[in-house]
């Protein structure tokens, strides 16, 4: 009896908790998901174009990382990329074009689910093809594409949705569409979506900030020196950061360092706080967008900052859409739209379908008020619009048109305006050409799309089963990702770390669903470095082909002391940072091959390299308050001379440098011990926690 009572009590509490939890963490607004899809899609397109610029030297066999070598010597345990099937620059370009098509279809919401899955395949493939330049930003991109797979991304603002609505109202007149009563919207066809996937997205997003705060427990962060050191990482900084480091006094950088920690902590709190989301989520957006924008414009971190901003769109809550709707309705007066003729009917139908804000009062044609022949006329207060002006004005009165019309006009450089003018000038000719017929039946009953959309509660057995399977899969993924989070983040104590079965590692590793979050944690890098090549051509010139590939001047620059930013983009600088490590020594072969066949790449015999030395150039960042770097060093990574050649031009070739291994880390690690400055007891506790 007691057990029963206990069980009943526990069940009641669980239900109460579920009732409290679900609306806060499991619900997503479909409009938010639609907007999120568009932002993610645009981001993927831009990011892929960034990679496409490097096809020849980083993704094809003419460059630094041939596919056969990649497959022979994989850089990760679970390494799979569709791009490894492509060898030539042309082939890789075709593959990138296919990826862009998938991203574009995903962006506009055409066959959304299928293209979401294909987008994930391409995102993973592009990432896995060149892991030497991967950083946390790439993982965020994968996570964006991955989690969106479990959400109804095409339920709003999509071609799919548009087609569904249009099909459901086929045969209805514009007037009938505009006046269909919304109260008859079937139950369940709401604007919300409930799934564990929503919570996973929120928690994953918040965990990035949480662990970026708690993992930063190092001395440098606590003493406020991080921003100073980071701004002096020449391989990563942009000219704006160089300008800032020379301008900002050291105490200001200290304040900024601590501010970063506070802001990141606040963002995590605002994301997860269960109430007052109406205010807290915009605050989170207001904090994170400037934070990541400043990262993005000052550091060459690749996709990280922009992916996080794309991620943040998920925070837009239903209340914000309602506020936006109210603002739109206040701003846009109700206008009367009339139409006649087949072309006018078509246009009015489109406008009626777009008119989600009910700003158009569509007047059924009665023959009494014909326009000038353009098919549409519009009355806004006392002013009457006809011709193409009526078309644009009516479009601007719809929420979608309000956003899209100016963009379309600008992006098409006025061609859209011309097209509308041409259509409006001879509507009957267009109607004849396309076979459009007269007005639709005004008496057609209002027919609503009652197909259970992703938002609707599942009806059929199959749909219920699919929902159950999806949520089950999400539970499994939650467990796997939690395991990964514990293993990867230094904030979790050593006893919690565990060995994962191979199946879990494969599920995480193939799509790169990693969860280690700690940018510049526990301490930032204090040593700067880049690769420098001194190559001598057959006619005696000194060149650095890596600088040529990176779009810089060809003259070798082996002196870091005067660097004001290396000038290399993220792909180049991360590649250089990884290739210098001994564990990636095998990948230097491709670099050597590229150098020895450089003249074949340029197509000029005089560019043939007869001697080269490849160095890893490094120095220590300046101490707090100083500007000049210290302790410059040079380590030879590779050296070669063409057999039998001793002179280039009129000068003898220098001796080859001696390739040396990466210096071993200081066993005392006094300077890098994040707990070094703490009281002994606390330091011991921290070291125990970290398992040191």
């Amino acid at each position, binding site marked *: 009896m007691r057990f029963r009572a206990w069980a009943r009590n526990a069940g009641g509490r669980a239900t109460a908790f579920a009732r409290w939890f679900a609306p806060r963490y499991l619900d997503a607004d479909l409009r938010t998901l639609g907007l999120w899809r568009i932002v993610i899609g645009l981001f993927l397109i831009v990011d892929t174009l960034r990679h496409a610029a490097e096809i020849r030297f980083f993704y094809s*066999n003419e460059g630094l990382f*041939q*596919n*056969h*070598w*990649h*497959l*022979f010597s*994989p850089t990760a345990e679970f*390494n*799979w*990329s*569709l*791009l*490894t*099937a*492509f*060898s*030539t620059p042309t*082939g890789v370009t075709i593959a990138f074009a296919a990826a862009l098509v998938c991203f574009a279809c995903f962006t506009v919401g055409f066959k959304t689910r299928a293209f979401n899955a294909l987008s994930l395949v391409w995102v993973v493939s592009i990432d896995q093809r060149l892991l030497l330049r991967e950083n946390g930003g790439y993982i965020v991109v994968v996570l964006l594409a991955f989690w969106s797979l479990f959400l109804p991304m095409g339920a709003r603002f999509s071609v799919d949705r548009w087609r*569904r609505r249009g*099909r*459901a109202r*086929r*045969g209805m007149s514009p007037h009938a569409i505009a006046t269909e009563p919304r109260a008859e919207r079937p139950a369940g066809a709401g604007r919300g979506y409930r799934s564990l996937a929503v919570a996973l997205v929120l928690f994953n997003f918040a965990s990035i900030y949480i662990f970026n705060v708690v993992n930063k427990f190092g001395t440098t962060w606590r003493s406020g020196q991080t921003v100073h050191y980071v701004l002096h990482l020449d391989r990563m900084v942009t000219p704006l950061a160089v300008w800032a480091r020379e301008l900002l006094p050291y105490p200001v950088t200290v304040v900024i360092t601590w501010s970063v920690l506070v802001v990141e902590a606040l963002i995590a709190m605002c994301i997860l706080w269960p109430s007052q989301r109406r205010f807290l989520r915009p605050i989170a957006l207001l904090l994170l967008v400037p934070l990541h924008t400043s990262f993005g414009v000052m550091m060459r971190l690749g996709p990280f900052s922009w992916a996080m901003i794309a991620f943040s769109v998920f925070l837009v809550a239903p209340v914000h859409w309602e506020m936006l709707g109210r603002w739109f309705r206040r701003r846009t007066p109700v206008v009367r739209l009339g139409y006649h003729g087949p072309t006018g009917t078509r246009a009015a139908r489109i406008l009626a379908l777009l008119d989600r804000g009910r700003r158009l009062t569509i007047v059924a044609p009665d023959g009494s008020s014909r326009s000038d022949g353009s098919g549409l006329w519009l009355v806004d207060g006392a002013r009457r619009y006809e011709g193409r002006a009526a078309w644009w004005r009516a479009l601007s009165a719809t929420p979608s048109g309000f956003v899209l019309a100016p963009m379309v006009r600008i992006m098409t450089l006025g061609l859209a305006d011309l097209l509308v003018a041409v259509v409006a000038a001879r509507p009957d000719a267009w109607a*004849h*050409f*396309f*076979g*459009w*017929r007269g007005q639709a039946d005004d008496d057609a009953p209002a*027919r609503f*799309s*009652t*197909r*259970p959309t992703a938002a609707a509660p599942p*009806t*059929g*057995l*199959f*749909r219920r089963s699919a929902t159950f399977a999806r949520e089950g899969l999400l539970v499994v993924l939650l467990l796997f990702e939690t395991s990964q989070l514990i293993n990867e983040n230094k904030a979790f104590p050593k006893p919690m770390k565990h060995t994962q079965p191979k199946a879990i590692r494969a599920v995480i590793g193939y799509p790169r669903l990693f969860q280690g979050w700690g940018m510049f944690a526990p301490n930032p890098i204090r040593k700067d470095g880049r690769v420098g090549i001194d190559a001598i051509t057959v006619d005696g010139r000194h060149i650095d082909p890596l600088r040529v590939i990176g779009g810089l001047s060809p003259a070798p620059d082996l002196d870091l002391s005067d660097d004001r930013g290396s000038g290399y983009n993220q792909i180049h600088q991360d590649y250089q940072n990884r290739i210098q490590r001994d564990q990636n020594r095998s990948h230097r072969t491709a670099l050597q091959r590229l150098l020895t066949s450089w003249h074949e790449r340029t197509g000029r015999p005089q560019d043939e390299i007869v001697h080269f030395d490849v160095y890893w150039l490094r120095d220590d960042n300046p101490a707090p308050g100083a500007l000049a770097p210290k302790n410059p060093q040079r380590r030879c990574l590779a050296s070669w001379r063409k057999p039998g050649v001793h002179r280039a031009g009129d000068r003898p070739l220098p001796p080859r440098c001696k390739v040396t291994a990466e210096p071993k880390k200081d066993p005392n690690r006094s300077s890098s011990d994040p707990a070094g400055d703490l009281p002994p007891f606390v330091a011991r506790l921290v070291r125990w926690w970290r398992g040191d």
Partner: protein
Amino acid sequence: MDTLKRAYTRIDARSLGLFRILFGIALIGDLFARWGHVRDFYSNDGVLPNHNHLFILKDEAEVWSVYHSFSSVGEAHAAFVITLFLYACFTVGWYTRTFQAASLVCLIGLSGRNVLTHGPGDSVAVALLAISWFLPLGLRLSVDALRRSWRERDEKTPAELNERPPLPSPRPSLAPLLTWVLLGVIYTGGALAQTGETWRSGEALHYALHVDRWTSALGVALRDVAGLSAGLTPLLHFAPLAIVPLALVPVGRRWTRGLALTLAIVHGLVLGALFTFGLYAWSLLAAATLLIPEETWAARYGPNRRRPRPLDVFYDADCGVCLASARLARRLDWAGDITFAAATPEALVTHPGFEGDEEEASRLVETTMVAFAGDRMFLYEQAVAQVGGRAALVGPLFALLRLPGVRRLARSLYRRFATRRREVSVALGMGACGLPAPKAADEGRRAPTSEAAPREAPADRWGRRFGALLTTAGAAGVVAVALAANETHDPDTPLQTGLSRIPTLVSLGSYARILGDWGLFAPDPPRHNAALVVDATTQGAWNVDPITGWPPDLDLSQPARARKGTMWLRYQEGIGDEARVPFRKEFRRYLTRGGRVLDRKDRNQALKSLEVYWVKRDIPAPGADATGEVERVKIFSQRGALSGGRSPARRRAPR
């Protein structure tokens, strides 16, 4: 003019649908055959790791395979599962064009993953799959067609079910004519390459059947039957020359096409049954269905055929599943034999075939569908058998419901369903008895007949013309690639077009694995039987061939041991070629890891030494008993300590 147009610009949509299904089945069969060798040929534990293949090919570089992306055995299995899904979708006609393109990519990839395993079947299948992309394969007999019809005609009443609107037919284009041309290139190009003495003397099949590595078990059993070679050699040689000309005759098509179809089927069946050339015979057999003309279909399902007794079906119009079944049955009843009616006691008692009273009618209406064929009444599963029996193509399968055991089981299942049919309908979201059914988004869309434009709009007309132009251009491109490949492969072919001098066409052929090697046993079949034999000795003193698991057959005395499957057939021919020496390094490594059957973890099965031979033996002339001398050409050998690769073989020996 109309006759010519009908003959050269159209292929019946049902023939196209049947071709798609049979070709899809052939592809799936081929995939399963390859799946048996997934470790050996599609993973890095096999004879050629992906990195090594790409490295060897880097200079040629006109081979592309998506399967190069997959390294481990697990990854290769995953790739094959995806491929099976794509093939299955193409076969059933779901998003037909999309999945056909995906299937084409997969087929090219399967062939290109290891250039040594490419065979004539791959060239034929890729060419046919490529050109048929320009034909509307999903117009009939497909999920697409069913969905389209389901969407466009949402029948609710028996009267609507009994309407027979016209079915869609393919739009005319030159793609069908170009398909005949391609088939002509394949058939004729292959036959014209057979210029040797044995083809003239009728001995070609005798020699071909005595090559153990490619002869099927049936071929081995039949090869010594007197007169077989003399009878079938001319057929194999001349039938391909006759098929396409017969198909192109524009008049009397039912007979000329019928003859062409018979020749194509016999030709395909002989090759498919007697040899193991993979997709070659089965692709051509599937393509034979394209020869079925509209007239033949009309004779089988048209109004002038000999009609069976019409069927009157009374079904529960309130049950969602019953209505859906009736709609499906109507779509499968091509001949229009079935008339549907709502099952009410009043309607039932008025049917002349019903002999009971109204009470009996009420009981039947509640418990079963009722079908009348003339004056015979069928209930329960027998009614289902009658309705299913009228279904086109699959109708005969419903005869199984008349078998005693099956009948009992089917009746039990039917009764269980019938008593719960409304609950099932609701559970499946189909609605029943006035309960709201979740309707399709486009429900209420008017039937196309009521919305059909009286005249074709100029935009539609131009769109159709442009579409036909693109289709024709695409199909012409495939034919041009095939002609160029044919010429490249056989420079002396009478089908000289000069297209092989266009590098782009040759490159396209190479990338698409259309290599023009469709001439089987050309110019002559080999006069000697040959096979690759590995003579290996393990630490446990076991003398074994690591590929077959049997003792090495160094005398070629056991045909079954030489027959290792289509993949090995092509590979062993390639690896023996001196031009392919770079491929041998990984083959050696594969063998030292235990090959197909040895478990390297077992110390006794670790290899001590191995020798790889290309063993040849002359084939005796027809009627002669004497067997020729055995010649062994050593390809390579390995003695002493063997260094294996990264991963050991995981299979155990079969014995």
